[in-house]
């Protein structure tokens, strides 16, 4: 494991990092886009989250070797990402912006891009057709004459995805792949990302829309203003912010009885009775509270009908971390 500035939850006995980012910083002139970022990532899907301007795209460009870090290092499969043709053979990148050779058809574009990996003309064509089918563009795969300039936003997004996938990369970096796509396309792309992760590839998916990425993966890297805020799964990240109270909404048979019992517990920082059968508990130690709740309910003779937490989603985590 590389030295990390935030607790990592991706570690394990079998862990082999595809990406090792060590104290990487990136400056554009006098503006710092990424500030001393360190992390490592193995196989599977990882969501890269942050608000607009957080440094997500810069980080992704560092990962695929389009940029060289101003300081620190970014290694992919054990080699520096910038300037290594061996790394580029194993990396696929779907950029955020819609730039194409507009007068080409989708099939022609993907085939041309695939040829540049060293595939023969026939294999490039075969791969382009297969991958266009896989991303949900069967008309383009069958040689439709429509040019990319005539494609909808969703179709363009899929062509970008296809060119990144055609050479079966071991690391796939997708910059806002769901932007501008319809619900059906979102579902297709999300499903595809999950499949690629299951195949053992490393997939980095960026978004500033948290619930979108939450549907694809539960592993995240959170960045804001060029700094790495946290990495791990939602629950683990949530544990990093113990200084913020965690709220648990309860629907019970007797809210006052359970409230008075909860107040005596050291990890409960506050209880608000919101109705005769509902209460809101605030705790600084969610795990301890969740573990104790059945016992406390039993002791106070209360039946818990429903339990949920408004803080157990990425939106809340992100709100806390960027506060």
């Amino acid at each position, binding site marked *: 494991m590389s030295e990390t500035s935030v607790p990592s939850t991706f570690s394990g006995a079998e862990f082999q990092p*595809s990406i090792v980012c060590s104290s990487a910083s990136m400056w*554009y002139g006098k503006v710092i886009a990424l500030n001393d970022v360190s992390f490592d990532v193995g196989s599977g899907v990882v969501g890269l989250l942050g608000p607009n301007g957080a440094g997500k795209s810069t980080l992704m460009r560092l990962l695929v070797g389009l*940029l060289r870090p101003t300081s620190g290092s970014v290694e992919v499969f054990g080699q520096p990402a910038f300037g290594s*043709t061996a790394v580029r*053979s194993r990396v696929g990148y779907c*950029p955020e912006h819609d730039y194409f*050779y507009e007068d080409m058809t989708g099939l022609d574009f993907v085939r041309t891009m695939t040829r540049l*990996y*060293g595939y023969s003309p026939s294999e490039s064509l075969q791969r382009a057709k297969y991958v266009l089918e896989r991303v949900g563009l069967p008309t383009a795969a069958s040689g439709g004459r429509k040019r990319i300039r005539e494609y909808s936003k969703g179709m363009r997004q899929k062509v970008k995805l296809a060119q990144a996938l055609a050479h079966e990369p071991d690391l796939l970096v997708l910059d806002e792949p769901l932007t501008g796509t319809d619900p059906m396309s979102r579902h297709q792309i999300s499903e595809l990302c999950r499949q690629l992760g299951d195949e*053992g590839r490393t997939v980095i998916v960026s978004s500033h829309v948290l619930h979108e990425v939450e549907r694809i993966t539960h592993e995240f890297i959170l960045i804001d203003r060029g700094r790495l805020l946290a990495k791990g799964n939602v629950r683990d990240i949530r544990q990093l912010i113990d200084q913020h109270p965690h709220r648990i909404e309860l629907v019970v048979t007797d809210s006052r009885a359970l409230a008075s019992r909860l107040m005596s517990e050291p990890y409960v920082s506050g209880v608000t009775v919101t109705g005769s059968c509902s209460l809101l508990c605030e705790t600084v130690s969610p795990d301890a509270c969740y573990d104790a709740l059945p016992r406390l309910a039993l002791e106070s003779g209360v039946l818990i009908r429903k339990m949920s937490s408004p803080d157990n989603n990425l939106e809340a985590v992100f709100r806390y971390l960027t506060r």
Partner: protein
Amino acid sequence: MRSRENSHRPSPPNVLQGFTLLGTLYLRRSVFRSRSVLLLVLVATNATLASLTTTTLNPDAFATHMFEVFWGFVLPATSLLLGVGVVRDELEAGTIGYLLLRPIPRSVVYSARVFSACGIAIVLAVINTMAVVTVLPIPAEITVGLLIALASAGAIVFTALFAAIGTVFSRPFLVGLGWLIGCERVLASVAFDGRYGAISAHLVGLAGLNTPTDAGLGLTVLEPPSMFGSLSYLAIVFVLALGVGITIFQRRQYVGDAPSD
């Protein structure tokens, strides 16, 4: 580092394959563009001015046209239009990232595009030369083959030069235009040895023609450099331009539609 390797992955394209693939892509992308119209306008201008020159009584009509119109303006202007687009076209289209992410060294990406642009420039140089020799009577001691060879050499050197300018400067067209006017038109016309900083002056010298301005102004005609000297100068400009272009292209970090540094 990671055990999972794709066994079906082919070797990255070698230099020759890279040149072929990227050259073909460049040619496909370059033929039908608005710039092509300007290139054809330059051919038409050259042919028109050559035919107008035939109506004058200037005994050095051929030398005048070659120096002032073809080698001194049409040839570098053609290369300017082609050369500055070698990197700039992809940058402006935002598609440069697709090329830089393929497993082909940046030096090959750049060189392939420069040589493809040179190819187009040579074709246009040949067409322009044929247009001139069809209209204007050429001196007996000069062969069409020599003119084609000189025009081609000039096209290659100018294109490499303007490609390098396109890689180094953020406003390459203006810088290139500055070179064209300042060096190829003004400097080349001045009767002192500094004129041989201009590529067109060497082309005139290699063809064995006198620079018309010297005779027109009643000045002593300057002796051009030797053939070896002129060829060496053209070779040095070409190699330097290509080297600078490759070096900058390899080091610069391109993000979407603009270099980041």
